[in-house]
């Protein structure tokens, strides 16, 4: 196996769970997310020669993952994405308060939150995946955290 393929395998072995959980926020369940992640890495293997090493490998694979997930969701009957990626906790019952708080965020902001906290990506990687600047990622996350604080603080006050 060549070096790129080995690096992709290493990434899969280290980060599979993060990819699956992150993608599940888009596909809606972990079963289909698993399928999407398998397909993502298969595509990454096939297209590995097009990865020029200018950014992080993980961000490159994440771009493939988001594209594959969007295709998966778009294939569902009656779904129109209009260019956005609708993300939500796939198992909201496990943390209903967090799920509600996240749902209150605008879709793009929500996606960045998932990439940060579910996928465990750095600001630079999120910027690369989403095609925005690192500053935008930082600002978006700050706004998202503030909104979450407002929602989750409410949760604590009611508890």
């Amino acid at each position: 196996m060549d070096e790129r393929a080995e690096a992709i395998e290493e990434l899969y072995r280290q980060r599979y769970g993060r990819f699956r959980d992150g993608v599940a926020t888009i596909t809606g369940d972990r079963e289909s997310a698993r399928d999407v992640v398998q397909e993502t890495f298969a595509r990454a293997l096939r297209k590995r020669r097009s990865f020029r090493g200018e950014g992080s490998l993980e961000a490159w694979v994440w771009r493939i993952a988001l594209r594959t997930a969007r295709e998966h969701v778009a294939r569902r009957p009656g779904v129109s994405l209009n260019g956005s990626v609708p993300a939500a906790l796939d198992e909201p019952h496990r943390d209903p308060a967090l799920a509600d708080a996240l749902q209150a965020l605008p879709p793009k902001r929500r996606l960045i939150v998932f990439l940060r906290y579910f996928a465990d990506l750095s600001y630079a990687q999120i910027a690369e995946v989403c095609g925005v600047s690192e500053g935008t990622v930082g600002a978006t996350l700050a706004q998202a955290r503030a909104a979450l604080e407002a929602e989750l603080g409410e949760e604590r006050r009611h508890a």
Partner: protein
Amino acid sequence: MPDEQLLKRRFASLAGPEDGDWQDVRWRARRRSGTVAIAATALLVALVAAGFAVGGRVIGLFEVKGSEVPLSSFTQNDRQLLESMCPDPEISHRSGGAPRVSCRSGEPTVRKIADDGVEVHWRVRYPWGLTCAASGPVGGRRNPAFGNAKITNLGCNAWAPGRKVVPTPQRPITVDASMGSTAHDPRIRLFRVTGLAGEGVVAVGLVSKAEPPLQARVRDNAYSFRSIPVRPWTAIAAYDAAGKEIYREPLRGVGAAARPVTTRAKVWSPGPPKRPSGPALQHASTRDAVVDVYRNGVVEVQFASTAGDAYRRLARTSRHSSDTADVGCLKVGFGAGRWEAIGGGSNAHVAPLMGARLGGGGGAHPIGGMPSPPFDVCEVSGTYGRYWNDEEGTRELVELPFTAIGRRYLDERATGRDLAYLVRSKKMHAIRLAIHRGGSAPSVDELVRIFGSRVIPLAGREDTAPNGEVGVWTDGKLIVASERTPAGRRLYVTIDALRIGPNNIRDLSFVY
């Protein structure tokens, strides 16, 4: 504003299970890039299959061909698995070398019989007549905790010598299915199905009532299903080149709710075997119990008193599960810093007199991995949690050594378990996880504070604590825990975040 780490922790608590499958990724990558090649192969297979049908060849026949594979090409885990079928294993010693297990009846011959690019299949034939089918993912399975393996499934025709382990006209496919349920969904689901396919079978399908079959092409006389969608599959079927179903067998239990595990499940045990009329071959006693081993493999353990500490603990701990305990015996060997142990046990209901028949059973097609008496050690093991530094300790409830090497093995195993339980403890796991996530290991003083007075700090990585105490050393990334056995040997284990690094306890206890 919520703390960054707090949010990460909250999300981390929602993480799902590690159910990745790299072999499936490789297969998908190859499947697309090799569409033309696969189409050509499928066409060829179809033509050949059609030729068989026209020529009156028998559908389902399986010709065992392929190359013989040397045992040395398999991993240590694989060889142990293959050796475990031996009816008369023994430990052999080479001067200055590590002991090794050999089989008096001879070694098996292994032939690679199919490889569909996902799963490799072998036929294993033993000199005493046993035949097995083995399979494993292409490239093997890597596991830093359990060790690497090429073979992940092994099925044999034990006790049914005429039964084929490869396809036949009556059963043109073999089926090796793994099923299970997850914590979030108690319904039984199929995780993986693989098998061999005989002549004329070009596809295999998973059948459900509501939807068309999910098909997998047969390649090189084998088929594999990976990433199987969750559906109530009812059967598996084989198809010929014309797409006609030529065979079907039910898949039982898929979609049904998994039976909850009850703590008071009834467990069968064979009951004490008949005591032979002649004298015992081996006899040993402790304060708690007496053991007699007979030449034909019958082992009897008689407790001195039901009021004794060992018996009361046995009765108490077995009540949590099934009122049974394991009566077992071992042969052990030591050399070049390594232990080897062969043996086994049998389930027996807890009573003042407990017995089992271990090995020596013979029969036309014996299986086992169980050596014949005399043994080095016999023991009675209870069912209880193995937690570090708990009141149950690291020894079995009754340990009866017959030889000096047996006594030393029990001593060293107890020390090895002490280290293994420490590594496996919840507190240590939290530390390992934190290091894995980029944190640094706690200082030795902090480790001592966390784990208590039996743990003492060590200045150097190679240092050892006095007997009965566990020494710890760390450089901020690695943690080395070490302990001295009663015979003075230094046992150690290196913790490299979630990975277990260099250690010399793996042959004594299970560490991960």
